[in-house]
């Protein structure tokens, strides 16, 4: 398991005998061990419970995947919802990468009229409540035929990703020495060739961070599809699983809900563990500039 970026040791302990250190350290390990369990327990318990026997669920005796089978056959079928979620997430990632890649390049290397205004307005998206925008977006997308459409959801989610992504990509491009692309320009490259062949490899970590955040945001988003989608065949996974709870006459199928949570959480946890470095950097870049 990768560990998060190290911080410099700030407090150095005075030299102690091993025995004394052991006595001092025991409460520390009890405390921190307890914390680790506290944060991991809900996920671990749900995963185990989803395959464990429980009366009133599909998995009534013995261990197995009956809850997942129930989930698979729920309404339009889990594959439809998985497809919808994957489609929305990938489209959001592609759009976010494209727009913030080009936009970050523009902000970092060019000057053009309205540059600062556009940057400020993009960041202002963060200041406006989600719900404040989703209601008029519902009306606007209805007018252009993109309401109840997965493409519409992806467009909206991309817009919400722009403040972070444009900011992140601007900083990434600015941290590349200008000499690198100026040399290529003098060699006669077009500005797009410079971007594609010289700068994109240099800002790859920034692109990975932006893509990861766009994926997690889109995969997990609940409110945009809740408001924009009303056809049950076009629901995304979080919406379908939230609806699953009130499946039969208000009786909640806890087993299938657990299975649904596991399916929702699994890709996020895997991506987090694989790309932890990029994930942490994304948060940090936001913190550094405020």
């Amino acid at each position, binding site marked *: 398991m990768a560990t*998060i970026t190290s911080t410099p040791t700030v407090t150095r302990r005075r030299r102690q005998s091993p025995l004394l250190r052991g006595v001092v350290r025991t409460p520390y390990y009890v405390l921190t061990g307890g914390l680790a369990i506290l944060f991991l327990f809900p996920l671990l318990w749900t995963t185990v419970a989803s395959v464990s026997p429980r009366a009133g669920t599909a998995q009534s005796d013995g261990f197995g995947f009956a809850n997942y089978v129930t989930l698979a056959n729920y309404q339009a079928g889990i594959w439809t919802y998985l497809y919808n979620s994957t489609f929305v997430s990938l489209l959001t990632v592609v759009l976010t990468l494209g727009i913030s890649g080009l936009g970050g390049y523009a*902000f970092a290397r060019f000057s053009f009229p309205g540059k600062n205004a556009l940057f400020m307005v993009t960041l202002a998206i963060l200041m*406006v409540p989600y719900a404040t925008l989703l*209601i*008029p977006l519902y009306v606007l997308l209805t007018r252009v035929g993109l309401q109840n459409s997965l493409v519409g959801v992806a467009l909206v989610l991309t817009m919400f990703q722009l403040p972070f992504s*444009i900011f992140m990509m601007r900083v990434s491009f600015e941290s590349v020495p200008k000499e690198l692309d100026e040399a290529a320009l003098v060699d006669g490259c077009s500005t797009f060739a410079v971007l594609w062949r010289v700068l994109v490899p240099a800002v790859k970590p920034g692109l990975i961070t932006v893509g990861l955040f766009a994926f997690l945001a889109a995969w997990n988003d609940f409110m945009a599809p809740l408001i924009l989608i009303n056809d049950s065949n076009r629901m995304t996974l979080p919406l379908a699983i939230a609806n699953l709870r009130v499946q039969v006459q208000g009786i909640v199928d*806890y087993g299938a809900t657990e299975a649904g*949570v596991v399916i929702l959480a699994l890709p996020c946890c895997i991506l987090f563990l694989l790309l932890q470095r990029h*994930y942490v950097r994304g948060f940090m870049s936001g*913190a550094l500039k405020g």
Partner: protein
Amino acid sequence: MSAPIAAVRAGAQRHTPGATRAGRRNSWRGAAYALPNALFVLGLFVLPLLLVLQMSASKWPLLSGNQGWNFPANFTKAVTHRLFADSVVFTLKYTLLATVLLVLIGLGLGLLVQESSRWKGFLRTSILLPSALGLASASLLFYVLYSPIAGPFAETMDRFGISFLGTPTMALLSTTFLIVWRYAGFYMLLMLVGLQGIPSDVFEAARTDGASVWQTFRYITLPLLKPTLALTTVMCVTGSLLAFEQFYILTKGGPDNSTITVVQLIYSVAFQGQNDLGVAGALSVIALVALVVINAVQLRAFAKDKDE
């Protein structure tokens, strides 16, 4: 880095040999690269923002669309809605609770995992992992955990007559616990960045002067961490004021409408029953103005603090 020949040729055809950087990096090219960003921001942010202003001043049922101006009436209806006052009070109460807890716990965790070691790396990863989950997934997860039928505490709850979501106070506390679980890692990380920004020679000097751990924390760490504390507070307040998913999924606003937040009220006025986009628009505008004012006040308070 050598340029590909094709690109060189294409470049040579389009530009005179003396083309300078200023010539290549002229404004229309920059504007062209920023165009997709501009289109998204205009079409999906500025336009909806203007539309919500129009909606808030219009009679606008969900299904039949704009029916003409209805200016002060929407706002009057919004603030006299039977759940308006309750939702504002509840949202503020929740915001205060969540912000205090998350900032304190974030700071505590940040201090705890500050130094780097294998164990602390594992600890950071464990604490941060829930933040990769969606808020909706986390809420569903706790919906089962808190269940008096299926949760791991079902028997204990039964024996002692505890219900995690049954009373207004318990519902608030249980939901706040879920939020702390989901966001503690995020705030821990922000605190770590702040702690990292404090130059280590300041601590060296304190140690040489014989300052105790508490003195070092109180008179060095805390004052130097002020910008981070300001940032985390503003972020947490903003996020909490806009709370929706956790209550929508976990408590559905209950018991007895005791956990309805402002955003939930906006959603239910717009799409659940009343279907009144005009009043929902008015509520949205009120929420937007309140958020801007609250953030401005906070930033000013922190800035003033810094001057002293």
